[in-house]
């Protein structure tokens, strides 16, 4: 009734190719952005921003990164954690080398280091594919993890083998470090995520995205219609790692405030892969949903016993939480193997034809 594109005529190509061609979607996204920018920083408590919203946005960006690789190009990667780490450590070294530079710029630049490393570890994808490739990317993960511990230069010879984020300001407002306020960090993270999501949505609709999807659907056929597999796959690795690298840098600089090798372990890689698959392969929208579900689920489960007035032993809660998360993943895959993005599409379709069944 309210959500219907009937009567919205497009009279030029620009309108036809808009990111959100339907008026209601445009209103929706503007409303969401307005709330995110104007209401949330003032309404939400520091705790909500620090431990819910900022992590959510950071994970969403990492998920988008992996989704570009796994969902759009069909290359399974388990090296996400390592690439995020490259971004974080590169950003740290950059802040030390250029103490006066704009930190936001440095965070974005650190993505290029991750992209370079990602492209190198993407080289095997030219020869191998599927699960073989997944295991090959584990090589990247373990090798990078090892580097983060064994190369003291990376963490500036700090005794605790971890990096402490220095305070850096943009236009006189501290953005990183202990003195930065939650609101500032939230706005910076939000802006970067919105910008990069917008770029990604244009990438996947454009020539590169179509090349990636052709490779995903069948790489030999893609090669036959004139797509260069080498460049396409490596580009996918590079772009994906760029996103992951920026996410890693944001995770360290704007969320956690410190980082060590353990933050970028194999578990991080698995977590991001969960988010991609639960959210929906090949969907940017799904990346946000997946990140929200996988990151939010343990938080909800932790608070749930308290809500019902049950007092359960903390260790038991954790074990049961593991079981529930595992079982939910299986149940969810059985119920909707195409992920939350598919549910979103179904909901939209239902809304479109409402009040009629079809």
């Amino acid at each position, binding site marked *: 009734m309210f959500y219907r594109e009937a009567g919205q005529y497009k009279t030029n190509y620009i309108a036809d190719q808009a990111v959100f061609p339907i008026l209601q979607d445009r209103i929706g996204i503007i409303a969401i952005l307005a709330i995110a920018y104007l209401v949330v920083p003032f309404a939400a408590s520091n705790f909500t921003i620090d431990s819910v919203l900022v992590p959510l946005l950071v994970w969403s960006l990492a998920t988008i990164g992996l989704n570009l690789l*796994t969902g759009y190009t069909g290359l*399974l990667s388990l090296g996400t954690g390592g690439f995020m780490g490259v971004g974080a450590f590169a950003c740290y070294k950059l802040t030390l080398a250029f103490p006066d530079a704009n930190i936001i710029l440095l965070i974005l630049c650190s993505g290029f280091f991750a992209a370079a490393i990602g492209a190198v570890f993407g080289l*095997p994808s030219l*020869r*191998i594919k*599927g*699960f*073989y490739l997944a*295991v*090959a990317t*584990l*090589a990247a993960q*373990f*090798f990078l*993890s*090892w580097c983060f*511990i*064994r190369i003291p230069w990376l963490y500036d010879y700090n005794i605790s083998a971890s990096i402490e984020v220095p305070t850096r300001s943009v236009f006189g407002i501290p953005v990183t470090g202990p003195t930065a306020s939650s609101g500032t960090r939230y706005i910076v993270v939000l802006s970067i995520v919105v910008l990069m999501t917008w770029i990604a949505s244009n990438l996947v609709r454009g020539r590169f995205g179509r090349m990636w999807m052709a490779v995903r659907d*069948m790489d*030999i*056929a893609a090669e*036959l219609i004139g797509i260069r597999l080498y460049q396409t796959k490596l580009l996918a690795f590079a772009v994906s790692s760029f996103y992951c690298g920026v996410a890693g840098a944001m995770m360290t600089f704007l969320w956690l405030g410190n980082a060590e090798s353990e933050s970028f372990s*194999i578990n991080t890689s*698995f977590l991001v*892969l*969960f988010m991609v*698959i639960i959210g929906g*392969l090949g969907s940017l929208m799904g990346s946000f949903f997946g990140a929200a579900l996988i990151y939010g689920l343990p938080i909800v489960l932790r608070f749930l016993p308290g809500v019902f007035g049950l007092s359960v032993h903390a*260790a*038991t809660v*954790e*074990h*049961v*939480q*593991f*079981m*529930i*998360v*595992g*079982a*939910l*993943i*299986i149940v969810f*895959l*059985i119920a909707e*193997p195409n992920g939350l993005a598919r549910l979103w599409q179904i909901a939209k379709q239902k809304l479109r034809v409402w009040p009629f069944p079809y």
Partner: protein
Amino acid sequence: MDILYKIFLDPFVQMGAAPDLLVQTLWEGLVAGVLYSLIALGFVLIFKASGVFNFAQGIMVVFAALTLVGLHAHGVPAFLALALTIAVMYGLAFSVERFVLRPLINQPDIILFMATFGLTYFLIGLGELVFGGDPKVMISDQLLLPRGAYEVKMLGGFVQFQKIDIAAAVIAAIMVAGLAIFFQKTRIGRALRAVADSHKAALSVGISLEYIWVIVWFAAGIVALATGIMWGARSNVSFALQIIALKALPVLILGGFTSIPGAIVGGVIIGVGEKFGEFYWGPLLGSGIESWLAYMIALVFLLFRPQGLFGERIIERI
């Protein structure tokens, strides 16, 4: 020049200077390789028959070992506990088939892969809930596993062979032989191979996929139990084993996902390569290279043979 010398000459001089140490390293590599092979074997069994990349194999090893130790701790005699654990593994195989695989028939591989992730989480939670998270000692004496070591005098020194390692190698050999006979000679084995070749063709000649899947997951469970006992006897039973199980992955890509001999040979190559690398080249790079060396070895092999050493040739059609 110095670095080249250190990489290409020094380690070999060391090997020549202390041949007994060389044999010792080789033996330890072999044993580690056999244990990797056992985990890889579980992966291969399931991948062959159902095309599922079973990430949960590592936790199945832990779970089986924990069940065995836990039952014994509650006063069940060792061999009865062993039988009961086998029964538990059958129950696990049955439930996995009924509640995970059957509803997910015909889904893409990556979805099934994810489902085994879910299974991993579930089993970690269940294992910790029932048996607790602290490391436990494997009941090797009660299971009549030998302990101690043989000291053999050779090459101007002593080489130590742990009895438990020899037992592990023997048990692995027996198990592989048993599996080979089972696959080649029995009715169920033939059905398994038929399913491995083509699900549809197997269905059309009246083989029940569901039944076959229970059988392979059960077989993988038994392999997991054997691995758990052996590995538990060497160190102890803890959830850290699950991480070590990731080491079986390079073994898999080296040997090929579908080849049982590949799992064995790959395991030995990775085990020996890793120990040699760590012992002779490790000091050069700083320690801890064990964590990624195996993957690098596998990666180099893969660049030359994308389907692994013994994998079936990949034929691609439009």
